[in-house]
């Protein structure tokens, strides 16, 4: 149901590198899971509205008042690499 090319395409979308072994395993496993999931295709769902949130929430906005946030030093403390006062990453175009 999902072939090797699709697995590679989806992995690219997910920014996920897969080893050759993982690609092979994923093709079989995802197909098996999708076979089960596909059973919802049998249901008549015309005129049914979608639910994304189950409990009704109204007036969820809090007052727009500035409060203290993390200091720059604290925000950078867990980063794998920093440069000056920012996160350091490899160049997008090496």
């Amino acid at each position: 149901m999902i072939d090797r090319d699709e697995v590679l395409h989806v992995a690219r979308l997910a920014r996920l590198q897969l080893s050759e072994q993982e690609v092979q395993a994923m093709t079989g496993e995802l197909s098996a899971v999708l076979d089960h999931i596909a059973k919802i295709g049998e249901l008549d769902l015309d005129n049914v509205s979608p639910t994304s949130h189950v409990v009704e929430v109204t007036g969820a906005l809090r007052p727009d008042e500035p409060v203290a946030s993390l200091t720059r030093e604290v925000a950078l403390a867990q980063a794998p690499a920093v440069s000056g006062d920012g996160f350091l990453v490899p160049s997008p175009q090496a």
Partner: protein
Amino acid sequence: MNNTDIFDLSSAQAVAAIDAGTLSSGELFDAYRARASNDELNCFTWLAEQAPKDATTPPSQSPLNGVPLAVKDLFCTEGVPSQSGSRILEGYRPPYTATAVARLEEAGATLLGKTNQDEFAMGSSTENSAYGPVRNPWDPERVPGGSSGGSAAAVAAGLAPWALGTDTGGSIRQPAALCGIVGLKPTYGAVSRYGMIAFASSLDQAGPLTRDVTDAALMLRHMVGRDPRDATSLQFPEEVSLPSAERLDGVRLGVPQELTGEGIEGGVLEAFQATLARAEELGAQVHSVQLPHAPHALSAYYILAPAECSSNLARFDGVRYGARAQDAHDLLDMYTRTRHDGFGAEVKRRIMLGTYALSSGYYDAYYGRAQRVRTKIAEDFKAAFAEVDLIVTPTAPTVAFRLGEKTADPWSMYLNDYCTVPMSLAGIPAISIPCGLSEGLPVGFQIAGPVFSENRLLDAAYALEQVLGFDGSPARVSGAGGPA
């Protein structure tokens, strides 16, 4: 008080003993700290060195009296490793504390340790942790369930008085069932999700794993409430009471045919039926109800939850925190290799599944349809609750299974959540209580109610607990490698 007596106390009893002056909070903490440090089940990923000095706040200001609390790893705790069972967050020490943990600490709970879990809460056996599997104190060759398996096993083994977990599709209730303890998933929104490392945001909910129903009520009381930092959190409409019901007179219990037949192990069904008989003796009326779309809940869940996870886990890219792959030749290479190295097999599977379901050309067939199935499931429950007060099912289709037994076939693992996922999709509260043994292993009895019916659930669970008289002590004796 000697250690045997200390470990016999529930959390509520420990609070009372400290009030009465027969036990000090320091003594209690030290006893559990020592016992937890001999953990042979791999429940903990981090243990506190000592109780914080301010744990001796006077009782009037601190209703939980310093009772130690084990916390699932995915709750952010300031300065304390919070790795969500993942290699990609190895060594991560957050700069802030999750609201649920902060509220319990404000009420006087003391952080004892962080508990092992399936990576990012994805799993039903706690075999998917980067920090090794957790074992079940009833039989160390078997899994504790998951994903809150470390929390459940720690409470069952008496390594912690009580623990905090999270439930997305059954991750509190199923491990509670497999370990013979109480687990409660509150109404979606009852407890703030702020500071919980997210899996599926429309489903994730924090809740207690405890030795008995009273402890579950006591912990829940100090967790609920609106939090300005979680826009989906809600004001709990009443105080959470400590349960006291002795009878179930007039309570209508609905038994859904769809969740109590095919696929449920014989011994589990027997224990379930025996518990229904006890409920009738207490005055409950047992009715058959229908949840026609419940058999499709698992399919809908395994579209919605992976879709949300694929989005939530995009944040793990090696830039701001956590691990990063070295010697990348450009930014994209750094992202893709960091994620390859940092995520385990099940997390990769779910990210792939979710990304596929959300990708162009498949969105309507998968995500769109799953959201419509969710509507039908919520409507099924609404219709059922017009006829009955509470719905009861077995919590899990089987007792605890052997390590490795279900890892090769993802769908066989996913079937663990067959009876718990429908309530998650509907956002309603559900509790699992231990109701007996099958082949020497605990069986869970699940009670679900309408939105914000936690007090009624707890009362019904309490009344049943009194007559069932489940004995969890065998797990506490064997759990720490010997008598307490």
